[in-house]
């Protein structure tokens, strides 16, 4: 009896294992069937592309073909679009996907599924999906990184067989040709940039308004810059910090993060890292070591001074919380970020209190500003034509953009008279069933509504801000595959992390700290790394006709 029971239990166990395997097999075979259908449409596509003049007809034909096929099989083919948010798949994702698909079935003859993944898991998950053949057609490279995706061969050539010209021609109306070119790697276009602020207003010091008032800082003495932020010098900031420190001795003045180069300087991290940079990127294409430069030294001396004065927490080295999250906690008063149009609203939201923004730096557009996280197509995509048409809709169709950015009208948000939007009744950031809150990553946030409080023409303002940026890197669009120097890169990365923390947060005298850091970097192979980067840059500059 007992033995019989044991047999029953074990066989049940074995069977449950086997059924587990069966499931994946099924998924595999269904993927295969879409493969074959794709081959048919792809063939039709290349034929159509042969005559570029009939691009519009070809695009409409592709849509009509898909609709016809759907009418036959009763099921639309599906395009999966993946990006991350901060909390994982939103509760209302199925509803939004249904709404979105209902619309795109009409306009494009496809279903669209948004696959939204928690930011912490996105990088790993998307790489796994891309390398294992799971269906994801369009994805944001924010997380895994554009160059990583290109180097690993995850991305499709968007211009293969005239794909972009024939089926995504509308994209070119929204993305300027030079921004598109900035995403080319070795001449091939693997991604299209999200439409956003590419330029940054460097060194925007953000201080809680209540602390400024408490310390008796008189703001009327400051001029305002083009973006409407107070223009001031670092000496002014030092004065303010001293007053705030005296008025609020229990609070830490400055909330640190390792951003003095990324957000606080016009140094171009050419090729995607700071091991070899352009110190004067609008004029000069010579690669130099930023950690030996005056720019970096000035930063370190400033932090050393602040640390000595007690403006910086003794736990700055170990505290991994975001700078704004610490200010939100109420124990810190100021931080540095980079500004852009309508930034005051954004940072006040992040810090949970009204913030005043001071503009201490200058606007800057780095070589990788445009190509930092473009939207890409999976090289394994079963139907590139449909994917390209969906990509175009994401950039150009306000209905699609609103659903993706904000959710469903009347449920998540309501539209005001001036076309701005706000929360629907009884909904807020915490209770909303669809609030990805990653507007800056969206293909085209300006095709969607503007949130109440931001200027209605924020899109135009941002475009102007980009266009008028005085310090634009000459190397805009230069990308570098460092995989041949991965050994040096790994060693540099370790050396930087070993010696940077204490010197950038002012825990050691910059004289000794910087020497230690530079010695370690050179020992890790900085010279070879910089030379390789310079050679690649020279080659690129020559090909692009820049000198």
């Amino acid at each position: 009896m007992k033995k019989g029971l044991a047999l029953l239990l074990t066989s049940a166990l074995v069977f449950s294992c086997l059924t587990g395997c069966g499931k994946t097999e099924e998924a595999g075979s269904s993927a295969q069937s879409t493969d074959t259908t794709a081959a048919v449409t792809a063939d039709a596509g290349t034929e159509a592309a042969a005559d570029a003049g009939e691009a519009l007809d070809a695009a409409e034909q592709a849509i009509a073909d898909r609709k016809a096929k759907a009418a036959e099989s009763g099921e639309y083919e599906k395009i999966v679009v993946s990006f991350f948010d901060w909390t994982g798949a939103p509760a209302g994702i199925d509803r939004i996907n249904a709404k979105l698909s209902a619309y795109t079935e009409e306009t494009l003859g496809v279903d669209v599924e948004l696959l939204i993944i928690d930011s912490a898991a996105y990088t790993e998950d998307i790489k796994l999906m891309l390398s294992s053949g799971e269906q994801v057609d369009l994805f944001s490279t924010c997380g895994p990184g554009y160059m990583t995706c290109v180097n690993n061969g995850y991305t499709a050539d968007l211009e293969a067989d005239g794909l972009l010209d024939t089926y995504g021609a509308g994209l070119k109306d929204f993305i300027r040709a030079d921004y598109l070119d900035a995403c080319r790697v070795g001449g091939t276009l693997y991604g299209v940039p999200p439409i956003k602020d590419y330029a940054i207003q460097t060194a925007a010091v953000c201080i809680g308004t209540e602390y400024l008032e408490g310390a008796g800082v008189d703001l009327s003495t400051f001029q305002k810059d083009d973006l409407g932020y107070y223009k001031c010098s670092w000496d002014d900031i030092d004065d303010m910090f001293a007053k705030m420190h005296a008025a609020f001795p229990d609070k830490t003045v400055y909330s640190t993060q390792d951003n003095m180069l990324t957000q606080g300087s016009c140094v171009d991290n050419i090729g995607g890292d700071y091991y070899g940079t352009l110190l004067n990127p609008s004029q000069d294409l010579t690669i130099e070591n930023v950690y030996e430069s005056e720019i970096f030294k000035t930063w370190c001396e400033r932090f050393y001074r602040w640390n000595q004065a007690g403006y910086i927490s003794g736990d700055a080295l170990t505290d991994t919380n975001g700078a704004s999250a610490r200010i939100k906690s109420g124990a810190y008063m100021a931080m540095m970020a980079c500004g852009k149009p309508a930034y005051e609203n954004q940072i006040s939201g992040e810090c949970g209190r009204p913030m005043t923004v001071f503009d201490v730096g200058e606007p800057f557009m780095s070589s990788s500003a445009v190509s930092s996280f473009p939207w890409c197509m999976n090289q394994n995509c079963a139907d590139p034509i449909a994917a390209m048409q969906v990509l175009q809709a994401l950039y150009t169709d306000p209905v699609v953009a609103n659903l993706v950015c904000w959710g469903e009208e009347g449920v998540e948000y309501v539209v005001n008279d001036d076309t701005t939007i706000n929360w629907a009744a009884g909904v807020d950031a915490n209770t909303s069933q669809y609030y990805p809150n990653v507007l800056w990553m969206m293909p085209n946030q300006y095709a969607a509504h503007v949130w109440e409080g931001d200027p209605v023409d924020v899109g135009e303002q941002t475009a102007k801000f980009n266009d008028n940026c005085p310090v634009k890197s000459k190397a805009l669009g230069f990308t570098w595959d460092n995989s041949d120097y991965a050994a040096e890169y790994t060693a540099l990365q370790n050396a930087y992390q070993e010696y940077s923390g204490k010197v950038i947060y002012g825990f050691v005298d910059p004289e000794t700290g910087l020497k230690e850091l530079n010695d370690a970097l050179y020992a890790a192979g900085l010279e070879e790394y910089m030379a390789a980067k310079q050679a690649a840059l020279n080659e690129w500059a020559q090909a692009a006709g820049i000198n």
Partner: protein
Amino acid sequence: MKKRIRRYFPVYLMALPGLLYLFINNYMPLPGLVLAFKKFNAQKGIFGSDFVGWKNFKYLFATKDAFVITRNTILYNLAFIVINTILAVFVAVLLAEMTSRMKKIYQCLILLPYMISMVIVSYLVFGYLSSDNGFFNHTILSALGKEPINWYMEKKYWPFILVFVNAWKVTGYNCIIYLSTILGIDRGIYESAAIDGCSKWKQITKITIPMLKPTVIMMTLLAVGRIFYSDFGLFYQVPQNQGALFSVTNTIDTYVYRGLLELGNMSMSSAAGLYQSVIGFILILGANLLVRKLDPDSALF
């Protein structure tokens, strides 16, 4: 043979899920090791990608860090093996000798740290060592009238801190295995020893410890096989990823993680994994050979 299969059929059936799991998880991916010698490209696939020879291994040996990370990995693991074994055997003997009803409670309490995630442990440690608000600086050192220590910048303390944290965390778990071995020892031996007038101390040193030896050897061999791996959480989370401490906290795993986090290079991470397993494989074979020479009965295979 046939009779044996029929007789043990339910047992084989019971082993089947485990064997399947082993096959799928441990043997099927083996051909993928070839990735360590290739420049991976998703379009070409694992087997279609270009061969690059030993290039992917270069970063593990190219710089002066190579010595530091290898030294740290091996020395810490050696310290862990020795100290954790002694502690675990000690605690297991104590627990076995205990007759009070509190025994179960003690056992649970000792096991508890093993269940705590390293991330949580790192914050427990931080609670003691934080330079502004930590228990040591804030309470103990100030009560003694001493200067506060910036723990996360002074590397001389960290070998002790890491060994201590590791011992605190795993002793409870390791001692379960020794405890079960002790409980499996024939009580008759102890009874006859007691009749012969053998003291408790003598019983422990002459009966319990020798009987534990095969288990100790087996556990040590298993640990030796993993001597090139390190507990990532312990070396990355507990020192809060502090640069100033790298020379005493950087191990092969943390070095690879820091370097490849942004590169996302699959071939280089496979190279590191292959290097660790091959060395581990050689070490475990060597250690087993040594044991077989010294004490054939205790060898694993």
